[in-house]
């Protein structure tokens, strides 16, 4: 016989009322986010073009065409090189800057607030600032001439455009890594170090066995965030090079945008974006699992 509860206890009623507050947070993203998302998935299997009213199901054709499209592979290559390089620069130098900011010096408060600036300004605007400084006769080339580097049109030269974008991206996002690492260093417990000092451990040993394991979760966290956000970079590329010159700086996200709004290939672009999402999802899940394991000891 099934258990039938005739009257709800006071606590259950309270709990239900509390859960009502969840609904808006579920419904609105549902309508604005999930439904369009699944619609997009469905549409990626059609021949949808912008301004096309007769939409037909075409199965996997878009995906197959995508994989045989050299522009797609170029965009994939750009995505990997751009994000790979940015991640490398941001994590390595971000770690260094984060550590630098953690040293106990007078006036650190000033430097620590300076580093926050690129995080607060809209990435698009920071990118435009750099665009202003980078032309052939811009101030950057002027300053570089002092150290013997010839003037280059950084953003319009196909050989330098991508690297320049990596620099701009690092400018905007390295502070993010830095303050996470800074927070990590600031919250290191004193006791292991005191014990190590008493035991007479060497500096290298201390770093390898104490500092590094404690900082690793934060490095991982910064890596996860940057990885996810870097793969879908759009603003700064669109604002500075628009994907060019040619398609030298066109990553997958931008590729999808251009394909949709310039060529009207909406379904194909959706397929591209979904593949991008899949990659992000798979890799970040693995990274997050790694991170959860690394922070398990804290519980």
């Amino acid at each position: 016989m099934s258990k039938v509860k005739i009257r709800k206890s006071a606590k259950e009623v309270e709990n239900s009322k509390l859960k009502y507050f969840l609904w808006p947070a579920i419904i609105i993203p549902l309508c604005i986010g999930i439904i369009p998302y699944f619609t997009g998935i469905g549409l990626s299997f059609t021949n949808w073009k912008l301004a096309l009213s007769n939409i037909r199901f075409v199965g996997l054709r878009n995906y197959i065409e995508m994989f045989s499209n050299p522009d797609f592979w170029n965009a994939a290559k750009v995505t990997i090189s751009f994000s790979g390089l940015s991640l490398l620069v941001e994590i390595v130098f971000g770690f260094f800057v984060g550590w630098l900011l953690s040293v106990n010096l007078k006036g650190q408060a000033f430097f620590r607030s300076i580093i926050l600036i690129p995080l607060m300004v809209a990435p698009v605007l920071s990118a435009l600032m750099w665009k202003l400084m980078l032309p052939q006769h811009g101030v950057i080339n002027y300053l570089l001439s002092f150290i013997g580097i010839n003037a280059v049109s950084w953003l319009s030269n196909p050989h330098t455009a991508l690297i320049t974008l990596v620099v701009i991206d690092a400018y905007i996002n390295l502070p993010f890594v830095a303050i996470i690492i800074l927070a990590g260093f600031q919250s290191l417990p004193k006791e292991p170090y005191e014990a190590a000092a008493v035991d007479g451990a060497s500096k290298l040993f201390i770093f390898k066995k104490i500092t590094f394991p404690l900082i690793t979760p934060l490095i991982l966290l910064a890596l996860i965030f940057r990885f996810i956000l870097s793969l879908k970079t759009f603003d700064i590329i669109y604002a500075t090079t628009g994907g060019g010159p040619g398609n030298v700086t066109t990553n997958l996200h931008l590729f999808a945008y251009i394909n949709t709004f310039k060529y009207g290939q909406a379904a194909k672009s959706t397929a591209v974006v979904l593949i991008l999402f899949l990659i992000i999802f798979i890799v970040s899940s693995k990274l997050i699992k790694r991170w959860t394991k690394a922070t398990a000891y804290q519980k």
Partner: protein
Amino acid sequence: MYRLEVKEISKNFGKVNAVRNLSFNCKEGETVVLLGPTGAGKTTTLRCLAGLEELNSGDVLLDGKNINNFSPDHREVAMFFENYALYPHMTVYENMAYPLSAPNRKNEYNKKKIRLRVQEIAELLQISELLDRKPNQLSGGQKQRTALGRTLVRKPKVFLLDEPIAHLDAVLRHRMRGEMKSIFHKLQCTVVYVTHDYKEALSIGDKILVIRDGELVQLGTADEIWSKMNNVFVAKLVGDPPINIFKGIFQPGENNSKIELYEHKSTINFNSTIKKLEEWTNKKTLVAIRPTDIIISTVQNPNSIRGTLSAIEAMSSSFEITVMVSNNKMIKIKSKVNFNNLLDKQIWLNINSDKIHLFNPQNGESIYHGRSL
């Protein structure tokens, strides 16, 4: 009519049965203590009484009225939390005034009455000078008294106290033990008090419930819990140093019964035959004796336990002596005499049959209590 009636309450969290069929009553002005080790379900029971946890079965009645479905704000109980749960953004005064300014109490207390009442309780607990401080400016003991003040400031039907003095230092704890009892008496409180410290339980409780794994093991007065424990669990729980337990075999005998402590090659003799223990003939029992009831002797005696006096600790009003006997077993004895001349020497322990407690080794239930207990 009882002020509080708890009828067969059960509470489980998934597969874990925290409280099982617990029942007890509380008269007005009575202090009932829930005593047990950590994880026994005492705090859960208290939370069920407060309405913070939902009962799986059973009833709670306050002055005869079933309050199972009442939310905490309608139950007319006050609770002291083990971690104090002070409101960190309010001063001590505001913390204590908060219960009195609850909307459903607006009629009872106006601003002036609140102030008088808070001051009255603050004075009782000697925290009057702290009223303007915030919790993060208080010491541990001061926080505890503030939390106590917040609990006592109302006039609820029942006070629920969860380990109120557990986290105080030893000196303060000792003092508060006495103070709490007089406070409860002065304010005529009906109290359900949770603790894991038997000393608190025995000194504060009118009625004590010993609880293990959510179940009631014994309900009794302090005297009954101390001398007439109905389970070896209770015997082990209550007493410092803990009660000594031996394994023995009962022999009915023709004139005198005796118990053979076979592991230590000694015997405890009764003055007569104990008829009611006949069913335990040749069966193993647990023999328990309090540290204060073992006598140390230098006279060899075939019935005594042979051992070596290995340590003496001086306590405030007695000596705690550790004696090592066969099988590397340590026996603890409490005595007013300092035996340090016998340190590391061989001695004999005498146990009087009038002071032993016998328990069933299978389920721990009590079989026999010595005559003089």
